[in-house]
């Protein structure tokens, strides 16, 4: 990849105070096209919710209360705290063409539109109906989300890895070292390099030395 492109990708983006956050992340080309540096757009009013009162997390099951897909339940894929948006998997979709070229119309895919927080509600696991949530403390002192209707604690969703692997459920293959063997301490510190130790163990004796050579 070109060095300049890589550097611009990795650089932290400075956004102005009245930046309109969209579904694209601010350092991507699409976001730069929609929000070039001099552009001023009409201000969007976002209901201020404090970070500690935020109830919907990525990976939760929520139900849609208003809109095209009212009544449907889905998993939260992305959360936008700046605009109080959530994107659910496969719900509230519109269709568009991606990868268009001058001679190809592109692939027709369904893309999800974000939903406002007030239009979704977390689902109570007991009766699988939407409920309002409060943050309360357990007897151990842990801060948890509690459903107002039934009083059931809603556990935090498991943070999934990007590759979908769940470490505790991993089955070791033939080339995997088991955790016990990995954590075994067999190192005896010594001042020899690995090569010198192996030579000593195998009894190899090397008396030739490298001749100093020059190349120009």
């Amino acid at each position: 990849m070109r060095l300049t492109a890589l550097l611009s990708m990795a650089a932290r983006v400075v956004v102005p105070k009245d930046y309109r956050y969209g579904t694209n992340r601010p350092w991507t080309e699409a976001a730069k096209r929609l929000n070039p540096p001099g552009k001023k757009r009409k201000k969007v009013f976002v209901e201020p919710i404090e970070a500690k009162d935020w109830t919907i997390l990525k990976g939760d099951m929520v139900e849609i209360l208003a809109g095209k897909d009212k009544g449907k339940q889905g998993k939260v894929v992305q959360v936008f705290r700046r605009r109080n948006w959530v994107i659910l998997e496969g719900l509230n979709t519109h269709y568009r063409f991606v990868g268009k070229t001058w001679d190809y119309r592109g692939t027709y895919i369904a893309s999800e539109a974000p939903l406002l927080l007030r239009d979704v509600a977390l689902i109570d696991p007991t009766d699988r109906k939407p409920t309002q949530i409060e943050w309360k403390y357990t007897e151990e002192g842990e801060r948890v989300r509690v459903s107002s209707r039934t009083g059931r604690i809603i556990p935090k969703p498991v943070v999934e890895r990007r590759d979908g692997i769940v470490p505790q459920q991993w089955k070791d293959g033939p080339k995997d070292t088991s955790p016990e063997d990995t954590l075994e301490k067999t190192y005896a510190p010594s001042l020899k390099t690995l090569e010198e130790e192996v030579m000593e163990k195998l009894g190899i004796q090397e008396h030739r030395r490298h001749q100093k050579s020059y190349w120009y």
Partner: protein
Amino acid sequence: MGVLSTLMRGLVRGADRMSEFTSKRGPRTLNKGRSSRPAGVKLPSRKFLSVRAMIPEFVVPHLEGFKLKPYVSYRSPAGTEPRMTAQSLFEQVVAPQITRDFTKGTFNKDQLEKYGFEPTQEGKLFKLYPKNYVR
């Protein structure tokens, strides 16, 4: 191909003159090589004399009953040992010997070679600096 399609858009035709001409690009008879060291000598009669000592040979100890494998399981937790530094290696290996000799009274500043001190790297097979081994 990406370069060529962009060139096509500019209505310019022809071979790609700007990319590096590697051994992947010419005809089958092109024998170019990708900067590997020759393991021998090129004779004046344009033949090649292979020298056995220049061909790298892997020396591997016997791995019977060796428990470690190429990959580590995902289930293993992160290790808790601190990273090894030169200072910690010194404290583990050399410092006990020096303190033992010092308490006995046999410590001599000029005889640091017996604790592993190397004044020069000349004459060593595996030099630490400039490093002449792969690992």
